[in-house]
């Protein structure tokens, strides 16, 4: 889901909490029973929300024979064996490599292209600026399935040399998939970056102009280094999204050994069907990279989601 939101959101993660001590004057407005009820409700909801993931993690460490004997609502039978098995049977070594081959070039390419267009949109006032942004942003929201017929047919007809694609066509090649992902994410990234660039002080260009800096140098040496926070947040967000992308990878890559992690879930279901502890371990393995992102780079992730909105 990549959607830009029009909100001024300076601080995404709440850091206000420590300021509100028990003696804060605000307590006057919320009487004690109401506050307790609020916490009970929030805690219950949070636990319900965490439960499915926690359940998967818990069962991924349990022996199948034990849970088959005692049922899942029991305790004991802990083992690491499911992970070893899931990794081997699910062919995760291969699919993680595939995810890497798809995600890294796609993220780099989308950030580069989006920052190029964003720079022009932020720096100059052309008559087509608004139209261009509209065309990019709208593309971001179109249902990808509605474009499937032409893309699928065209990819099947476009030949690629052997060293780029072993299938001999765009269909079944990583390049085809990377290009589609880039095209779909460009709108969001361009919008976010151009808004960010508009907040940079104009003066940096004024002095750059005196030096006779070319447009390319203004972009590459002046603007991009200043956009590092925005680029970092977008990189985190895009990596997550492209790693999570399911539809295009499933229909365009065709053969199972080329699938990235998320699409390979489709094949895994049959593999793991009989053993739910194995299924749990597989789910945890698939979730692992995004959970790392979530816990380590949470700030970037959340600020990325609301970044498009901050206007200087």
């Amino acid at each position, binding site marked *: 889901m990549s959607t830009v939101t029009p909100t001024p959101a300076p601080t995404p993660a709440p850091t206000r*909490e420590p300021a509100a001590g028990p003696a804060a004057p605000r307590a006057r407005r919320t009487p004690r029973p109401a506050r307790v009820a609020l916490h009970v409700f929030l805690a219950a909801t949070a636990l319900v929300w965490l439960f499915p993931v926690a359940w998967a993690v818990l069962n991924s460490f349990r022996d199948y024979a034990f849970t088959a004997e005692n049922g899942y609502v029991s305790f004991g039978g802990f083992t690491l064996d499911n992970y070893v098995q899931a990794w081997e049977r699910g062919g995760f070594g291969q699919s993680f490599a595939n995810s890497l081959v798809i995600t890294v070039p796609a993220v780099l390419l989308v950030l580069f292209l989006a920052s190029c267009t964003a720079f022009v949109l932020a720096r100059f006032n052309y008559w087509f600026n608004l139209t261009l942004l509209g065309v990019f942003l709208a593309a971001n929201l179109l249902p990808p399935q509605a474009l*499937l*017929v032409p893309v699928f047919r065209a990819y099947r007809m476009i030949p690629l040399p052997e060293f780029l694609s072993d299938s001999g066509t765009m269909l079944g090649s990583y390049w085809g998939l990377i290009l589609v992902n880039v095209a779909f994410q460009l*709108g969001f990234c361009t919008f976010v970056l151009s808004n960010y660039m508009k907040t940079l002080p104009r003066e940096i260009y004024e002095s750059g102009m005196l030096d006779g800096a070319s447009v*390319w140098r203004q972009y590459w040496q002046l603007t991009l280094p200043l956009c590092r926070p925005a680029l970092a947040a977008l990189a985190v967000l895009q990596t997550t999204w492209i790693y999570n992308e399911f539809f295009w990878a499933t*229909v365009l890559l065709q053969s199972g050994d080329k699938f990235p992690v998320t699409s390979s879930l489709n094949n895994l279901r049959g593999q793991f069907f009989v053993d739910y502890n194995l299924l*749990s371990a597989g789910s945890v393995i698939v979730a692992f990279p995004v959970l790392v992102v979530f816990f380590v780079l949470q700030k970037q992730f959340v600020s990325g989601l609301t970044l498009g909105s901050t206007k200087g």
Partner: protein
Amino acid sequence: MTVTQDKPAERRAARRPPRRRGHRLTGRDRAVVTAMVAVPALFVVLLVWFPAIASVLLSFASWSGFGGIEDIEWIGLENYENLTTNYPPFWPAIRHNLLWLAFLFLVPTPLGLLLAVLLDKEIRGTRFYQTALYLPVVLSLALVGFIWQLVYSRDQGLLNAVLGLEGEARIDWYGDPEINLWAVLVATAWRHTGYVMLLYLAGLKGVDRSLREAASVDGANQAQTFFRVVFPVMRPINVIVLVIVVIESLRAFDLVWVVNRGTNGLEIMAALLTQNVVGEASRIGFGSAMAVIMLLISSVFITVYLRVMFKEEKR
């Protein structure tokens, strides 16, 4: 291309030096600027807009897809006629998509808003609550389908065990065509709630504090302040959330595809379309006609979305 770098109406006009400095770019700079716009635009046009137009054209044609483009035969509205009268899963799919929309709109969206309002207050542990609630947002919907399998499975699932169902009474939550749509919707809602909450949390932070204070000085209670002051002020966010809900229910695909490829009670538009293009029986006409229906619906809401975005831009 003539460049005018100063426009009096520009937002930051005040920050810039008062003198007008409209100037022209050199030939090389112009080429660079053109490339910086044209290359990314080419991606979007070739891979998104061109296919969109081609989908519309193909929906009026009969084409096996194996021959060249010259084998295309124009047949008018026949594809649409076949789709609506001769293709049994079509109407169930429409019904399921509408149900999907209604459900997302009525359950997880208000819940996400409620949670955002509660968490926007200065309370202890808000960080923990927020983290828990938007954890599912980082997971792909395909994986969400997988994780819920552990809850829904007939033989080993948690739900049947908790409900104490045994033997014949056990329910196959993903498999029973009467129930599986609801099971899938609950799993979707699990992820959607956190996303809506995140959007509204950002929106609420943007609401001017003094508005609330003014309302409470005027004697409004919390509910009145929210419904009469805060909620109307968040109008742009409300519209965006509405658009997201519509688009998300229109392009719902991953979860259903992982469960059973959109059959047996889980027929939805995006999955039917994909079956018709990728599957053995390749029916391009059907697929394109469905694509056009999806494009039409989405274009209405995309227009709404763009209008809100650009109005905000100008502000």
